[in-house]
């Protein structure tokens, strides 16, 4: 139990009706690290994100963001959390600037500060001149970059991204991955990045492998990956699990 953890998920289980979607999920994201939450579609990644983001509580277990318990101190825990959801969540009828100022207000940041910070963040994601454009004029990759800027507007120390590159072309995908890695490197941001794309994970990252609602491996990529690489290890892990279940 390290005091430096940006996120600790402890024994989280969840059911929708009688269907169990998460089972005793535990892992940690150390401060200033890029951790990939790796799992195939349907593994429970989005449900886990919803629980971490307090959209709903887990039936059992705990979530702590920088030692703040999400159920007991939700305000302080959420203030440290930036989230990019899998679904597009910008308001298409508003301008990019209006979307960012709205999000800043949801975190108690007044308009003047929000406008300043929006300009700086949009410059960072290469969209400095688009502040007054309607969201519906953006491409998929640009909208995603605005969502990342929005998630950073209240200066969170932990950023959650739920499959942020889904549906994007190769160039946009690699731009976004590079942007986030730069934030980790330059600003010490902690990141939990849900994905099912192995190419987005690097040897120095942490990885949590989620399969059918259970964590089947976690730790530094180097220790989880076999000699054949992370892809081989991932397929082996998920297949082993299937074989055990069918036995």
């Amino acid at each position, binding site marked *: 139990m390290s005091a430096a953890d940006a996120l600790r998920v402890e024994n989280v289980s969840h059911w*929708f009706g009688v269907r169990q*979607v998460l089972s005793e999920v535990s892992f940690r994201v150390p401060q200033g690290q890029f951790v990939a939450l790796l799992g195939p*579609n*349907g*593994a*429970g*990644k*989005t*449900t886990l994100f*919803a629980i971490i*983001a*307090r*959209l*709903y*509580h887990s039936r059992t277990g705990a979530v702590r963001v920088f030692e703040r318990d999400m159920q007991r101190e*939700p*305000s*302080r*825990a*959420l*203030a*440290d*959390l930036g*989230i990019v*959801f*899998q*679904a*597009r*969540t*910008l*308001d298409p*009828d*508003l301008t990019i600037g*209006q979307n960012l*100022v*709205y*999000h*800043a*207000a*949801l*975190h*108690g*940041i*007044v308009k003047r*500060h929000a406008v*300043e*910070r929006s300009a*700086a*963040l949009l410059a960072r994601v290469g969209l400095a001149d688009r502040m007054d454009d309607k969201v519906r004029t953006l491409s998929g990759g640009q909208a995603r970059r605005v969502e990342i800027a929005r998630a950073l507007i*209240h*200066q969170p120390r932990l950023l959650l991204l*739920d*499959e942020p590159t889904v549906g994007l072309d190769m160039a946009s995908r690699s731009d976004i991955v590079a942007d986030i890695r730069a934030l980790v490197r330059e600003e010490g941001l902690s990141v939990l990045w849900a994905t099912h794309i192995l190419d987005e994970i690097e040897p120095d990252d942490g990885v949590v492998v989620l399969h059918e609602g259970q964590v089947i491996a976690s730790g530094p990529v180097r220790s989880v990956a076999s000699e054949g690489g992370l892809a081989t290890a991932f397929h082996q892990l998920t297949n082993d699990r299937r074989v055990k279940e069918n036995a």
Partner: protein
Amino acid sequence: MSSTVTVEGRLGFAGYATCFSGIVRREFLRFVNQRERFLSALVRPLVWLFIFAAGFRSVLGVSIIPPYETYVLYEVYVVPGLAVMIQLFNGMQSSLSMVYDREVGSMRVLLTSPFPRWSILLAKLAAGVLVSLLQVYVFLAIAHVWEVDIPPLGYLAALPALVLSGLMLGSIGLFLSSLVRQLENFASVMNFVIFPMFFASSALYPLWRIRESSEALYMICLANPFTHAVELVRHALYGSFDPTALSVVTLVTLVFFVLAVLAYDPARGIMIRRGGPAGETT
């Protein structure tokens, strides 16, 4: 790029106020961007006033009943009901936008604000009421041109009544938004909520007339909170006060707001049962 305000500072009272005004501003911007919504919100009561009321003027005589001190024309009688009808539609429109927000995912952004859920929902509610007030006063101005005379002070006295009736109808809408599973199901809200509430009330005809034709319908109208919202506004417009209406409207507002807060509570609300927006993997 650094802000001088600390996290603790942002989460204080000033932060609440910023969050509140941010939500209200966003709803207002959405409203301004949807001019056809404003237009249709106005056209609906104006059709009732210009066509229905004119047609029924000779058929439906209205006797002297409080708060009126003299015989009034039917279009005079019907104006308060139509004003609250605007709020009824507006409340349901807000509810519709909550369901839409949930489907497209922007609800998630709202619900991950560090401020308590009740304060977020209250801000949504307040925003809806503000928008409805704007619509109602434009309607009242047009009605004035149509020679529906209301005492000048009545416009001012009606403001708190309209705020309260707007809060009540908004709370009902907010609660309904937690029950409606999908956007497509919203038509049933029209059938089962808006029309019965509007027609089984004192909006279009005085309750004594309803009682003459059916005692059961009269009792239904009396139990309908929309009746009390209409009467509260009707009395306020003519400088009188209806304590029963005020009590009913206040109580119904509180009950439905608490129900809405419970429905959006992370431990027991709709998100825990329904999960995320359509199209996301689990």
